[in-house]
């Protein structure tokens, strides 16, 4: 995903001279390095100073640029939160903040590097669009949208490198910002997630089909804010059982957004959610092992689905 993001920046940046990239001491690789070399004026390394990275991006946006701010998710969003809120949100400026390695991807780096609250925090800011593409293909399309179409600030969750291109054979061929996307269509139950966690749902879906002959839909809620209310309503009315899985703490999660939407609209269907626990993680291992510890393994999710 990281590489596709950089490819997109290089491609659009070559045409649109108002695109610029700001990083906080993240060493550029691949296309980002190409961008830096070819357009040194439009690549700014702000050093380990995330507050000023956001402030500078806002200053550039006030003069007509469309900046991208790029660093590890916790430092992209949590550290400079008030700058994102005031400089970008309050002034409604077209700056995209990229949270790299969001969720528990930095699984051995400890809680300082886990962004488990980013969706809640970013979504709470008025004017903010929140995106979480699920694979490199979507990442590129989302980046192009941010560079050319966004009207205000965007927070975008980004994975790492080497994610499979799962949307190649997606049921919904088109990726449209603001519209949820069927990755797979089935009649029995609906599995909802966003970002790279869609990969977990693919495993869950395969196992449910093989062992219990259950046909699942996999739905990618890549645009978390604004929530696709129309699309969501159809799903809530169609499926008797809906499972939302996310690499995020329960408070302010997409699960809570969907449940409150269902309740307010009096659509009473069985909605279960599997989120990270409301706990910091003092445990080191692979990304998968950390997810398992918090209940986001295939077997634990299936167990939850089968609960009455």
């Amino acid at each position, binding site marked *: 995903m990281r590489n596709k993001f950089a490819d997109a920046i290089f491609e659009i940046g070559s045409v649109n001279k108002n695109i610029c990239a700001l990083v906080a001491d993240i060493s550029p690789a691949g296309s980002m390095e190409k961008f830096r070399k070819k357009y040194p004026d439009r690549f*700014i390394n702000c050093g380990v*100073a995330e507050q000023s990275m956001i*402030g*500078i991006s806002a*200053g*550039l946006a006030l003069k007509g640029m469309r900046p991208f701010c790029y660093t590890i998710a916790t430092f992209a969003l949590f550290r400079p939160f*008030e700058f994102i809120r005031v*400089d970008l949100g309050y*002034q409604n400026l077209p700056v995209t903040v990229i949270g790299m390695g969001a969720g528990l991807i930095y699984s051995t780096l400890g809680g300082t590097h886990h962004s488990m609250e980013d969706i809640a925090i970013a979504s709470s800011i008025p004017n903010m669009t929140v995106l979480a593409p699920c694979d490199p293909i979507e990442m590129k399309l989302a980046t192009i949208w941010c560079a050319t179409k966004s009207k205000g600030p965007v927070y975008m969750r980004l994975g790492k490198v080497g994610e499979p291109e799962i949307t190649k054979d997606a049921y919904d061929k088109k990726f449209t910002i603001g519209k949820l996307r069927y990755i797979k269509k089935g009649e029995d139950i609906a599995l909802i997630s966003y970002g790279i966690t869609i990969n977990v749902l693919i495993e869950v879906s395969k196992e449910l089909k093989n062992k219990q002959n259950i046909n699942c839909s996999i739905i990618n809620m890549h645009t978390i804010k604004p929530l696709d209310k129309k699309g969501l309503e159809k799903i809530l009315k169609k499926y008797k059982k809906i499972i939302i899985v996310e690499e995020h703490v329960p408070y302010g999660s997409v699960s809570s957004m969907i449940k409150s939407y269902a309740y307010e609209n009096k659509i009473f269907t069985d909605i279960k959610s599997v989120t990270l626990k409301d706990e910091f993680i003092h445990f080191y291992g692979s990304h998968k092992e950390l997810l398992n510890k918090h209940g986001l393994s295939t077997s634990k999710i299936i167990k939850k689905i089968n609960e009455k």
Partner: protein
Amino acid sequence: MDNNLKFSKRNLKKFNITDSRKRCLKYRRKLLDISQTVTALHAGGALSSMEIVDFIYYGLIYNKNIPDGSKNTFLMSKGHGCMSQYIALNELGILDDKHLETYCKSNGILGCHPDFGNPGIEASTGSLGHGMGLATGMAYFEKINKTNNNIYVVLSDGELQEGSTWEAMMMAANLKLDNLICFLDHNGSQSFGNTKITHPKFYPINSKIKSFNWSVGKANGHDVRSISSSLKNRKENKPHMTICDTIKGKGVSFMENKPIWHYRSPNSEEYKIAINELTQVYS
């Protein structure tokens, strides 16, 4: 900026010290008038910045001798002092009388802090420590587009206690932004009291700023001649800061250097005394 187009080229004059003095007296009277309509005004910090703001608008932006001056940008980073900016913008004809009359009222557009989108307001400030980052981005934009436009910023003492200000100052020096010109409204007085007592290691300021590879000037912040000549210290490839020594509440004796006037508005009795005093001292 579109807002600035309201002030057409026809109105441009050369900067004149006597005119500036007259305007600043008018600003202070106007501030006291407005103070009678609201409870919150941040009078102290507005009164300390009036000569600086007047010099920026009339000396550095809308000045017949400055080609394309209106393309320069001004940020009131110490947003709480924005009454001096509002009144100057009104004098320039960029903000209408009705805007000042409805300050902090439900039928108006102006509040206690500058709000981006309002006439003449080029960024939302008021949360301390934001102006320097915004200005650095703006100054960098002007540099890479090879313009001659400058970014002018007025900061408070409190803002130099925010880490974000120093983060951006380091970056502005890295980027060699000699088109970034800042004025510290050094009134030495904050909500909690006298800065020398409440925050002694705030001093020395001059050497701290210099060590970030900025050029530094010093001025009497109530003397536009002194403010103007401080800019001679500007150096190529370096951002610049003039430390303007000012008096919080300047012009009204009972307000001067009294922390309570950071936020308070005078009652009608105090208003009368203040207006009388201004008339005597300045005439």
